[in-house]
């Protein structure tokens, strides 16, 4: 009788476990973020944030001391003066000492997870949250103002010094007064938007998930032009010499004329894919001296010149979803090998290996 009871309990246990496994409970649903500074690298790689030596990738410290399955760090950390600001999936915005990783203060007023990192201005930390709110804090972590949109905010805002601009899942692009958080204007972008905006010479450039790229007058929110791309847009465009460079979900790097939105040319990174599958570009690329570097879902890194011709490429171990970082002669790329392991690769601008870091090798 006792044996049977244990047997039934075991069956229920296995049922519960298999349901949890089949449903994917406990797996992450984002990709890592990284910040590259003059000395250090701050890597938000899931359950913890790790500070590394920028020269060799050796770990310096990690935060928090005790990891939990719900407190996950994916957004790129940002610097606010002498503080390192990190946000997590457990509704917390934390200020850390960048040298030691010790906590300075914590803001716990948000009701949901932070997907993207905050915008840092001269005196404010402006954090978008999935609870539909934008929180403006001072450098001591005190709430200065809050603005509530109609849906989740997944995107780091931009500012021109007087106005803060950010898109929302509710399809709108908002412009708020930076000092007070009062709404100045908003414009319907047609589809939910997760891409960061680019502000250049008084015009905001932003693409939505349906692949429409907009140029919007930052002063009054009027539409300057809009143009449809082949695939949805996930990241901010890069601006160089009157042209925009932005990747899309079909794997194209589109080159657009900033003045009128005309598609000048494109480079299709999926052409190099082993199969016919489209290798999406999610992360923002970076401008380097002789061109633009983008990574795609196939784990391919491309350097193209400003006319859209490929100069070089490099194959990495897994999909590249995150924004690439660049400083000096170093490129930092997060490689998503699986949903649980995301190594970090440092390369020179000619794609020579510099160092790499993952939880298993601890830097080499």
């Amino acid at each position, binding site marked *: *009788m006792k044996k049977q009871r244990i047997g039934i*309990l075991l069956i229920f246990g296995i*049922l519960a476990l298999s*349901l949890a496994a089949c*449903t994917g*409970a406990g797996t992450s649903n984002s990709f890592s973020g990284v910040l590259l500074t003059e000395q250090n690298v701050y890597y938000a790689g899931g359950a913890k944030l790790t500070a590394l030596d920028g020269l060799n990738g050796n770990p310096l410290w990690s935060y928090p001391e005790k990891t939990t399955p719900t407190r996950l760090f994916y957004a790129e950390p940002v610097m606010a003066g002498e503080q390192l600001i990190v946000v997590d999936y457990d509704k917390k915005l934390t200020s850390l000492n960048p040298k030691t990783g010790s906590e300075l203060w914590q803001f716990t007023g948000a009701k949901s997870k932070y997907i993207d990192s905050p915008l840092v201005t001269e005196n404010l930390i402006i954090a978008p949250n999935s609870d539909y709110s934008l929180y403006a804090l001072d450098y001591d972590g005190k709430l200065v103002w809050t603005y509530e949109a109609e849906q989740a905010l997944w995107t780091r805002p931009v500012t021109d010094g007087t106005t803060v601009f950010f898109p929302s899942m509710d399809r709108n692009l908002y412009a708020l007064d930076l000092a007070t958080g009062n709404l100045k204007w908003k414009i319907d972008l047609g589809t*939910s938007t997760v891409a960061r905006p680019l502000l250049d010479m008084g015009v905001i450039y932003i693409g939505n998930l349906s692949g429409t790229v907009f140029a919007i007058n930052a002063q009054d929110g009027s539409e300057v032009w809009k143009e449809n791309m082949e695939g949805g847009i996930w990241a901010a465009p890069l601006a160089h010499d009157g042209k925009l460079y932005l990747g899309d979900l079909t794997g194209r790097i589109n080159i657009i004329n900033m003045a009128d939105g005309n598609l000048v040319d494109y480079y299709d990174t999926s052409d190099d894919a082993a199969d016919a599958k489209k290798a999406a570009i999610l992360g923002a690329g970076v401008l380097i001296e002789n061109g633009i570097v983008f990574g795609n879902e196939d784990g391919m890194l491309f350097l193209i010149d400003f006319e859209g011709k490929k100069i070089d490429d490099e194959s990495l171990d897994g999909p590249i979803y995150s924004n690439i970082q660049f400083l000096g002669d170093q490129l930092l790329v997060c490689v998503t090998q699986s949903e649980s392991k995301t190594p970090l690769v440092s390369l020179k601008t000619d794609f020579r290996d510099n160092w790499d870091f993952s939880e298993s090798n601890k830097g080499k």
Partner: protein
Amino acid sequence: MWDTIIIQPFINLLLWISNFVGNFGVAIILFTILTRIILYPLTASQIKSSTAMQALQKDKRYIEIQTKYKNDKEKLAQEQMKLYQELKINPLSSCLPTLIQFQIIIGLYQAMIQTMAAGPIDLLKLTRHIYPNFLKLSEVLPLNSQFLWMDMGLPERLNIPGLNFGIPVLAIVVVITTYISTKIMTPPAQPGANDQGAMMSKMMNLYMPVLMGWLAWTLQSGLALYFVVTNLIQIAQYAISGNVHWGNLAFWKKKAVVKK
């Protein structure tokens, strides 16, 4: 394969209903009713099969076999099988709907997670799972996931002012409805029926609500809503077929019998 056959159609159907009614919670209720209607032939055969099994428990020959071969399990199984064949009963036919339902629960949960797109990876998968000729991303996003006081993408808790913890109302309702549905479907133990079967039923009646309640407490409230609606429809289906044992719920009567 699993994605193409199960997840993708579920996602598109859920999104289509959600787009039509303007609320994801209502979409889950309608989707559940729809799946129960589609699965009705299987449920009907399950009810028929369990009715036949209940009738068998009262059959003289069955009781005789149980008594006669209670110390020879191999022979008991052989004789039982003979009787099943003679009466054209398939004891396994009541398991098939349960197995299919389990697949639907897993498929629905995965579809719901991806439809709610709570993180970038889920959103990326969602953009790929939408049939472009059937739905437009601009029309289905953003999803209205608020239903009553709940967010369908998060575990449910009802926060009452003055209390510093949330009450898992939906999980409690799941436990109660699962308990009722398993209890009223279980035939009362027959005199002479084997103790093992009765014990199995008793443990199922106890553990099933706990398991479902635990899932409802920890996973997204959308899935808990699916459990509640499924239980209610199941109770209704059994009641319509006239195959419920309401007397099983009167636990106080049983206690009185035990005292005697």
